[in-house]
């Protein structure tokens, strides 16, 4: 039976480990940033997105 790991980005199935290894290598090749910098960069997006939305809603409610 086929390995049920390995999707393209569709719905919520886990990504294929081999496909991800190749993708990560290409990302590293193109951006050339260290893992620590990437963690900061991507983490900042994850943190800032909800904060910005909450601030916008707060300002809207204040009118």
């Amino acid at each position: 039976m086929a390995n049920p790991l390995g999707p393209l980005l569709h719905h919520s199935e886990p990504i294929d480990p081999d496909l991800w290894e190749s993708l990560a290598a290409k990302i590293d090749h193109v951006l050339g940033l260290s893992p620590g910098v990437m963690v900061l960069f991507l983490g900042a997006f994850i943190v800032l997105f909800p904060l910005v939305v909450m601030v916008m809603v707060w300002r809207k409610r204040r009118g």
Partner: protein
Amino acid sequence: MSGDSSGLDGAEPGRSQKKGIYYGWYVIAALFFATFVAIGARQGFGVFVKTWEQDWGVTTATISVAAATGWIVNGISQPFVGRLTDIYGGRRVVVLSLLVMSIATMGISLVTNIYGLIALFGFVISFASGGISPATTGVIVARWFEKKRGVAMAVLISGGSVGGMIVVPFLSYVLIEFGWQTAWLMIGGLALAFGVPLLIIVVRSNPGDMGLEIDGEVSDKSPDARIVVRPVGPKFVEKWRDSLNSKPIWQLSIAYFVCGITTASIAVHFVRWAVSEDITTGTAALAFGVLSGINACGVLAIGLLSDRWQRKNLLGAVYLVRAVAFISLFVLPGPIAIWAFAVIGGMSWLATVPLTASLTADVYGVRNLGTLFGFANMAHQLGGAAAVMLFGWAFTAWGSYDVPFAVGAATLIAAGFVSFSIREKQHSVRYVQVPEGGAVDITEPVSDES
């Protein structure tokens, strides 16, 4: 927030007007983030497989049990969470679901063997993530939007794609820098610290809770009046089970079942097929990137078009386009087929979701939408799980994917024509004037304050 019954924009009571950004778009933004985190974390599971193999001394097949269990559990959960949404309101369900999912995700950092992984990822996280799926989030969106329902659904659904593009790399780099336990702890912690408060603060199940009407019209009723009359679909029935006696739900579900078959099978067998065609994994990864990019653009474009054109025609066209992508896989030489599939298939990959959710809401209204779309989602997931196994057996038996791809193309063509056959102009609230006191939901919508 129901106390803010004059409308958020300070509009004068008794006048319908719009000013500033409609609050429904903030609701979309919050649900987008929840979808983004929930789907991103589930997709990120694949990043850890090789690490767990080394740490726990297990095979990929063993770890696959957790993923496969999660797939099935996620599918089965959808009608349940959809029903809970219809009864208790979407806000409560999405908040509770993200809360449970966040804590369980952090709990994975404590797991020391495959059994713990199956319990937490396969059951708890997968069930809870069903509560942050279109069966729940789509219901909230459908209650806030009618005229722009298609594009609103499309923006929401694209959160899944963005989650894959941001959360999966995030988890991967945290894994490299700090280890896998920290990765799960961080993503669960971020969801708990930012996602849950975001949903609590921003999301409301109904625009009526904000003194607004659907699409941002300010209520013409007195400022303190709860909006109690909401147009529902022409095929609305009081009991959701009676909806199963009408054709559109079957037409939509059968087509969506095919969607599950074709997307899940490709998702799992894509790399295997590429290798069988002597295509490198690197090329497959590039094609995957192209597909993802086109997919994100395609779903938004379809959403915009679906608010102007008949949704069933777009849905039918999407299935036929995907059929062409499938045909290219067994007609064209592999190195050409992979790019043809990436481009053509990318246009249709996620576009079925906002179209199917919007059409279901248009036809049946929003009162039982969670339950009805939950069943369609379950059909999608279970169809996908069955197809993954059948495609695997077919490849083992014949050493080629040509026959399964041909069957996939045939089912897609059938799904296309089934979609075209939906009589949208007779059944959709967009085209049929629902008579006052007739097929309308006069039950007060579930309020977050009740």
